[in-house]
């Protein structure tokens, strides 16, 4: 790149000399051939490599190659004695190329800096020694030691030590998290102060850090519509412009009396200068690359340019309730036993639900507080959307919602309560119910409000929870439509119903926490998974992963998406617009080759600089 820069500088100096000579009084220097020689020399220095490539490509039968086009345009200009133009076109063409490669490198670098979470080594305990090894070589179950200031190289569980960890590179969240023995730590975080020993739970390939890196690096492979459009456009644009140029050089001089050949050739050559599609083709992926990079800085992982583009067109946003709009941390609020003691009811329910990982089951186990003795449980049957039936101490315990009780023909109280109710029956006798409640996340209401401001036509909430709980949450948040008491299968059905309500170009986004909603995530136009940290299923199934569990990040993602798309459109309009105007003007002979150079190189530079804005997401 340095060499190229020097060639451009020397070439520019020679051109300036050639131009200056005209005004000095040394007669022998002012001769035509001397000036021509200076131009030729600078042309060779600046554009020699382009000419060489062009010749090589002719033998390969590639006439629409940009090297070839530039060579024809510049040599043509010199043949009709327009030396300064000829050399300047080549000079500026090279400036444009240099700038492009600089911009792309810079953009690549800023993304890799952004993603500077790749751990370089891990300190593994081997016997009493600490060995520094590549994270690749660490196996599950190994003990690694992470000192202050070091990156967590692999996912694992802390077994010793206390510390604060900085998760900002993964989540964009700046408040450090406290960890102690028993807490999970994720690779890519930075250990701030203490020393911690961690038992590795995932190999490097499976670790959060490599998943995220893989995701971001491959994101721009999935191309956006605008990028596909522009490559298609480029495919036709160049040949058409070149053909018109040829016609322009031949036909008018034949048809029009007194028309000068060189005048029309000059116009045709201007066409060739504008015929390169590079400004267009480069600025679109550059914008999306920047947008995806900027989003990841905010803790939003976008899996493809196409998804970032689709998000800007979202019309309906569908939310899962639990874990998405609410914290998903349930707590046992009330216990209403019938015929047995409170403790007994809680114990049996906790046992019955102990095989499930659902947040509700976890809350029961937490409230019960004692170890679950697996041997007391036999025959667990989970009935999706209803509950569980399990044999505990030879008693048949059924725990679930009203539907389960109806199914088993057990009458139960159906009072309105604020929360999720788990009814329990022991040996087909009603034994009371437990009320479990969840909390709405702090920023949920703000997120819904902001979404409405940004032209979302409808917000919808889907939940398996009762109508009562669902409508309370929806009212508190200002959600337009609620579908409650849904089985996992019903959610997909409701989504299909919603598809018929959107406009032809509008998109539907579904936001879930990745637990139990993978099919819905997959069937939406845009699947957004919340709280992606540590949840493989979510990262797998979604198109966009929000690393923190803040719903307000959806609005941030939409802003990034709209900004990126806006920049891409601006670039398309700018480049096509200016090129078209210059083409028309050169055909009419109104403008000159200098304008054509601007339409090519100038526009490239403006478009590239514009696409850099996509990376800046500070105020979004």
């Amino acid at each position: 790149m340095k060499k190229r820069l020097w060639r451009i500088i020397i070439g520019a100096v020679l051109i300036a000399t050639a131009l200056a000579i005209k005004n000095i009084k040394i007669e022998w220097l002012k001769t035509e051939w001397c000036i021509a020689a200076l131009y030729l020399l600078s042309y060779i220095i600046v554009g020699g490599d382009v000419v060489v490539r062009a010749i090589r490509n002719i033998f390969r039968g590639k006439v629409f190659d940009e090297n070839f086009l530039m060579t024809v345009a510049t040599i043509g200009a010199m043949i009709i004695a327009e030396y300064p133009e000829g050399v300047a076109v080549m000079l500026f063409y090279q400036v444009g190329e240099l700038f492009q490669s600089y911009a792309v490198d810079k953009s690549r670098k800023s993304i890799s800096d952004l993603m500077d979470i790749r751990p370089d080594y891990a300190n593994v305990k081997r016997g009493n020694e600490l060995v520094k090894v590549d994270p690749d070589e660490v196996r599950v179950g190994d003990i690694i030691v992470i000192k202050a200031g070091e990156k967590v190289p692999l996912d694992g569980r802390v077994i010793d030590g206390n510390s604060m960890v900085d998760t900002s590179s993964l989540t964009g969240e700046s408040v450090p998290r406290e960890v102690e023995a028993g807490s999970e730590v994720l690779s890519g975080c930075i250990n701030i102060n203490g020393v911690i020993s961690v038992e590795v739970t995932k190999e490097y390939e499976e670790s959060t850090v490599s998943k995220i890196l893989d995701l971001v690096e491959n994101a721009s492979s999935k191309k956006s519509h605008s990028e596909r459009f522009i490559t298609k456009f480029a495919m036709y644009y160049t040949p058409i412009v070149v053909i018109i140029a040829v016609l322009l050089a031949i036909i008018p001089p034949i048809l029009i009396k007194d028309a000068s050949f060189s005048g029309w050739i000059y116009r045709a050559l201007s066409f060739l200068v504008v015929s390169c599609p590079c400004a267009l083709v480069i600025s679109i992926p550059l914008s999306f690359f920047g947008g995806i990079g900027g989003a990841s800085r905010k803790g939003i992982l976008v899996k493809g340019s196409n998804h970032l583009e689709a998000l800007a067109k979202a019309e309906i946003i569908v939310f899962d309730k639990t874990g998405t709009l609410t914290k998903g941390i349930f707590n046992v609020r009330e216990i209403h036993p019938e015929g047995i003691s409170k403790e007994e009811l809680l114990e049996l329910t906790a046992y019955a639900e102990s095989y499930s990982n659902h947040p509700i089951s976890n809350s029961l186990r937490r409230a019960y507080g004692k170890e679950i003795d697996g041997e007391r449980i036999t025959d667990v049957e989970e009935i999706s959307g209803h509950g569980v039936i399990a044999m505990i101490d030879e008693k048949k315990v059924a725990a679930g919602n009203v539907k389960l009780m109806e199914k088993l023909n057990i009458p139960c109280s159906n009072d309105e309560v604020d929360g999720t109710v788990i009814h329990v029956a022991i040996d087909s006798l009603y034994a009371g119910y437990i009320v479990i409640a969840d909390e709405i996340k702090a920023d949920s209401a703000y997120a819904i409000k902001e979404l409405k401001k940004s032209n979302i036509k409808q917000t919808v909430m889907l939940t398996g929870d009762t109508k009562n709980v669902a409508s309370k949450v929806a009212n508190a948040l200002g959600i337009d439509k609620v579908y409650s008491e849904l089985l996992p299968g019903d959610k997909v059905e409701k989504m299909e119903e919603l598809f018929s309500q959107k406009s032809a170009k509008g998109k539907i986004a579904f936001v879930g926490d990745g637990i139990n909603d993978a099919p819905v995530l997959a069937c939406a136009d845009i699947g957004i998974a919340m709280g992606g940290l540590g949840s493989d299923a979510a990262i797998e199934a979604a198109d966009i992963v929000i690393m923190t569990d803040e719903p307000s990040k959806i609005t941030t993602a939409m802003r990034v998406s709209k900004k990126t798309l806006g920049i891409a459109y601006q670039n398309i309009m700018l480049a096509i617009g200016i090129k078209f105007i210059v083409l028309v003007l050169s055909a009419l002979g109104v403008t000159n080759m200098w304008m054509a150079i601007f339409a090519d190189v100038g526009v490239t530079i403006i478009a590239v600089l514009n696409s850099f804005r996509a990376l800046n997401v500070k105020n979004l």
Partner: protein
Amino acid sequence: MRNDYKLGVITMKKKFILEGAICANCAAKIEMAINKLDGVKEATVNFMTRKMVVEGEDEKMSSIIQAAEKIVKDIEPGATMKKA
């Protein structure tokens, strides 16, 4: 994406890195040309990361790679395909 690809055909994915100077338009041209090769299910060339992923029929992979190398050389003589 061609999701309706012949059923029952085993495909595999190969990853490459394109080294050397490569322009955005050429990357697109390379992608298009490789996608037209026999046995290729999907090929993507990522200009920004210089990564190329070719998914194609298991049996035809070696001929696909050879053809792809020739395409890269033809379109961008300065670039080479390296296994990633």
